[in-house]
């Protein structure tokens, strides 16, 4: 992971809450602020890990922005190509199951018939309490 000092060094020239805009992307409007980064990392439980990753996201957003040019007035969103059909419902009978042993085998930590998880209800430390992407 990135050391705090490296990040502070990189951020200084960009200033304030500008965020990590990529030079290659003219539309990098600083939408990817440190707040957004933190928010996304907590929602996704996946970290950016590097400046390049943020730049890639900015490029992805700029790419997606091209959709604005399409006129979609009066157009309904399409969720599925099978939207005109009725969903098939099978009869409510139990035909399989009772395979707890097989399922438990795939887990790394199991106690009797329980999957074992570390304690919950503990938020991830805020970004400025851990290494990279400090708040301004």
């Amino acid at each position, binding site marked *: 992971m990135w050391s705090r000092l490296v990040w502070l060094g990189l951020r200084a020239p960009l200033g304030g809450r500008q965020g990590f805009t990529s030079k290659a992307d003219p539309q990098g409007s600083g939408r990817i602020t440190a707040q*957004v980064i933190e*928010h*996304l*990392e907590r*929602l*996704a*439980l*996946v*970290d*950016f*890990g590097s400046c390049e*990753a943020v730049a*890639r*996201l900015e*490029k*992805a*957003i700029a*790419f*997606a922005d*091209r*959709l*604005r*040019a*399409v006129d*979609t007035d009066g*157009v*309904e*969103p*399409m*969720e*599925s*190509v*099978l939207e005109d*059909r009725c*969903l*098939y419902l*099978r009869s409510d009978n139990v035909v399989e199951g009772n*395979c707890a042993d*097989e*399922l438990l*085998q*795939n*887990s*790394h*930590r199991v106690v009797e018939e329980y*999957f074992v*998880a*570390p*304690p*919950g209800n*503990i*938020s*991830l430390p805020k970004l400025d309490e851990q290494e990279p992407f400090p708040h301004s």
Partner: protein
Amino acid sequence: MEVLFLLSVSAALKQGQITPTELCQKCLSLIKKTKFLNAYITVSEEVALKQAEESEKRYKNGQSLGDLDGIPIAVKDNFSTSGIETTCASNMLKGYIPPYNATVVQKLLDQGALLMGKTNLDEFAMGSGSTDGIFGPVKNPWSYSKQYREKRKQNPHSKNEDSDWLITGGSSGGSAAAVSAFTCYAALGSDTGGSTRNPAAHCGLVGFKPSYGLVSRHGLIPLVNSMDVPGILTRCVDDAAIVLGALAGPDPKDSTTVHDPINKPFMLPSLADVSKLCIGIPKEYLIPELSSEVRSLWSKAADLFESEGAKVLEVSLPHTSYSIVCYHVLCTSEVASNMARFDGLQYGHRCDINVSTEAMYAATRREGFNDVVRGRILSGNFFLLKENYENYFVKAQKVRRLIANDFVNAFNSGVDVLLTPTTLSEAVPYLEFIKEDNRTRSAQDDIFTQAVNMAGLPAVSIPVALSNQGLPIGLQFIGRAFCDQQLLTVARWFEKQVQFPVIQLQELMDDCSAVLENEKSASVSLKQ
């Protein structure tokens, strides 16, 4: 005479000219010889031999299960296979052994097919080169073909032979390489944005994407639930039809399969003439990036249909230029959701951190996913943020409807089948491919294929001819929803017209000719 196709080897099995065990041994031996292609992640040798033994018993008792009994097949490693490691070429699932078979795998096994192994892919099927998995990239067998090597000898600038090997395309590159190198007769791929058709075009194979809802996705580790379908890779259209016949049909375990009656078995009628056919050529697919060779073949194909009496019309799919953008938003959004299940708790990789659930999940996912996957998850989560949802995700869903409607309108104007290129060019060398990142490459390479997934239509890539460099070029046919049989019928007619050459992997085949000696009397070739 080599027995290259499913139907012909099936006939040989039925007539007792070759036994399933011999066939299995031959394919296993080829797998070993072609190990350098890196097509297989897992070779299920014992399983295959056991299945071959059982198949042999059935043939002896005159109780064969059908055309697929005793036929070696391979399955992409994102389909769950009971008792056999299923990794999706990712650290997240390395060592994961599913307790069940994907429906399509089960169907093939029920028909007596022999499972040779699980094939390599881009991690979680994200990519268009089969280069981004943890087991390394897949090499295109055509890199080692006589056709390609002879052309390269003529080039004074050609470098050291092996460093210039070509990609297979992706993400079902392992499956494509496996079929192309004769290690099996058919392989399952998956197709979300072209992942079956793209490598098929680069490896000189038939790559078929069924209509969404025709084939069950149960057990296919999902990427984009509204677009994924299992795909079929074979060396000829008839073989693809046989496999489709085994796979198509409703599945109570997949609520997105349709329950309409389907014509089974999928025996394709012979198309005597094409004069009643109307072929559509979408004009927006003629883009500057298209290589002149592919453009020329596309044009020749259209001329061929016309000269044989078919009507050939230019059609318009006006939203084509937005299709890749729309796909990008919808794909990353669904991926963000689908990848959320990988938290290390019930299956897959788990990190050592035990401070809290969230910390454990975060570290597990950091360790388990590569940059490409993480990048897509983050992009998808961005588009799904409350403040972005309307402007990106819902907007893309609206554009998806416009794109699907474009196709409906084209077909309503009297067109039966659309004809387009599959890829921009022939397969490129790996060293060139990796100069751009995964997202850029996918956006470039999926350009002709992903609109089909958004509309849920059936499509097939057919190998047409070799390029000036001796490499395969394929063209794509797109059909109306649930008109898969008609689509394949047209494709089969076209395949017979173009007579695409067989790959010449001479050194490999010489050693196998001894086993095939006794098949001479049952010889059936494409030229019949």
